[in-house]
């Protein structure tokens, strides 16, 4: 991904000179071992319990004291089963979506926070999807509580969870068009007049980098 400029608003003249900066940020590569805390033990245990670890896990990231495993979509169900049965992650705290329209080929991201009450541990699974093929295996068979969370992520992002027992909208009305949490879905709103001045709708206000 490339990024232009460094700070400030984009709709006025650039007086700082920083607006001409072009930065390339890398989204590949893993964190180096040791990860610290119980993260090494979790990754070791998963490697032992799952022979296909190197093919299934694209990246291992430790950031701000949290462990994220980037899982290939095709292997998600297997990894989830092993995490539940062998590594004792009994509960999944749902799924959250993220939409990165600039990240071509990996526009949609599904994030699963897992919790092990037995070992008092938390990890996170992350799966990237292409917008043109937004299918991901459902984890309802692994953790029944993911049912509504997956419906919500479908509703909000349009990610299709294959194998979900009833993937319908949950928060928006059934006949709603579009998926509101995607970045290309406008917030809407109208300008409001207050004490003689007009304040634009939130989505039309000036943004700062």
């Amino acid at each position, binding site marked *: 991904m490339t990024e232009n400029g460094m700070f400030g608003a984009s709709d006025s003249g650039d007086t700082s000179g920083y607006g001409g900066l072009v930065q390339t940020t890398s989204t590949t590569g893993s964190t180096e071992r040791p990860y610290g805390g119980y993260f090494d033990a979790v990754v070791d245990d998963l490697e032992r319990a799952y022979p296909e670890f190197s093919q299934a896990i694209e990246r291992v990231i430790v*950031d701000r004291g949290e462990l994220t495993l980037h899982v290939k979509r095709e292997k998600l169900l297997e990894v989830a089963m092993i995490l539940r049965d062998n590594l004792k992650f009994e509960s999944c*705290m749902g799924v959250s979506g993220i939409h990165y329209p600039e990240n071509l080929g990996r526009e949609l991201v599904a994030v699963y926070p897992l919790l092990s009450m037995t070992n*008092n541990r938390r990890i*996170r699974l992350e799966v990237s999807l292409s917008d043109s093929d937004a299918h991901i295996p459902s984890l309802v068979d692994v953790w029944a509580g993911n049912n*509504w969370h997956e419906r919500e992520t479908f509703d909000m992002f349009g990610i299709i969870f294959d194998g979900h027992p009833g993937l319908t*909208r949950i928060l928006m*009305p059934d006949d709603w068009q579009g998926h509101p949490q995607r970045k290309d879905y406008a917030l809407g709103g109208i300008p409001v007049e207050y004490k003689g001045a007009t304040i634009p709708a939130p989505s039309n206000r000036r*943004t700062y*980098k």
Partner: protein
Amino acid sequence: MTIFDPYAPSRETTEGTVFSVTGGDWDSLIQEIGSTKEERVVVNMGPQHPSTHGVLRLVLELEGETVTEVRCGIGYLHTGIEKNIEYRNWTQGTTFVTRMDYLSPLFNETAYCLAIEKLLGITSDVPERASVIRVMMMELNRISSHMVALGTGALELGAITPMFFAFREREIVLDLFEMISGLRMNMAYIRPGGVQQDLPEGAIPKIRDAVKLMRKNFKDNSTLLIGNSIWLKRTQGIGYLDLAGATTLGITGPVLRSTGLPWDLRKVQPYCGYEGYNFDVITADTCDVYGRFLIRMNELEQSLRIIEQALDKLEKLEGAPVMVADKKIAWPAQLALGSDGLGNSLNHIREIMGTSMESLIHHFKLVTEGFRVPAGQVYQAVESPRGELGAHVVSDGGTRPYRVHFRDPSFNNLQATAAMSEGGMIADIIGAVASIDPVMGGVDR
């Protein structure tokens, strides 16, 4: 010309006959149904129904009075808070998240602010006094939230007096909130880096008096309900959910603790300095509505204990800061209390308007642009009165959140309705849903 039938009018659809019952006309409905051969009846309960805890819609399939299938319909209170936050700066987000689960606003704010602090890497820089105030406010909030759970839960099962007692206690807490933050609910009091402002003068003795009063008052409800034979009949063995069911459904909070597992994030994954307080994790082993009721009753006393310890700490920390020292993050936190509630800090206005142009520029930039948060994502969970409230916060390095998702315990726990109620009596659904204590503002966000 068709004559409108005011008593349970019916129309034919492909799914069968549909009756519109408006209340008071159940007898005519039963007469009509009695003449058909159909034994299976589908009833829409809610979204406007006094016993569904807000705008929750339950679709019940009944055979006689036995419930064979339950489906929940939610979304009637969806306000797009998660979407709206993406168009505001990080600090403004607190005014949105506080409105999600409106019975526990301070927990929403704390989860959100702790997540931002983790992203900023300033978790250890948050002043101790701010953390202690957060803990005290959260525990007061837990009392007011449990009071609504107990009061409305009892009311829905037909007991009116406990509701009066519960709302009397809740009023005490809301008055304290008003004194401290200026607002009774939706305070946006907890801010990234600390709290909005310090406690007003004379707050600590007032809170101590309130704690004493509440400890005395709580006895009214416990003598009324604990061991009460009608109450036991309506709650014991009702809404059964065991540990295996709770973990696969991701259930947390009092419902999980009613299966006997002492899982409380304040103990097992402490935040805001909870490791420095003495309190017990309350459990029950009955897996039913009565167990959850007892847990909430006993958690009140534990919250009072934590508040007392927090007040002791606050007395020692008198005059300490309540906002991080970094002025690039800290909003002006020294507001003045005007006659009509909160006002601006006159000293701050004097400085930015009269003496320092740099201060004015800084203030303007901080308030309009906001501060930048380094790119990354975190998940921060707190133990809300209903269970694990998780904030998944993603930053792209800008002045606005890139994505904020709240894993609300009500949303998740409401999924247990079917497991708790199918096969039981229709009247027991009310008790089961009340024991989950869902708040639809949090469910729908």
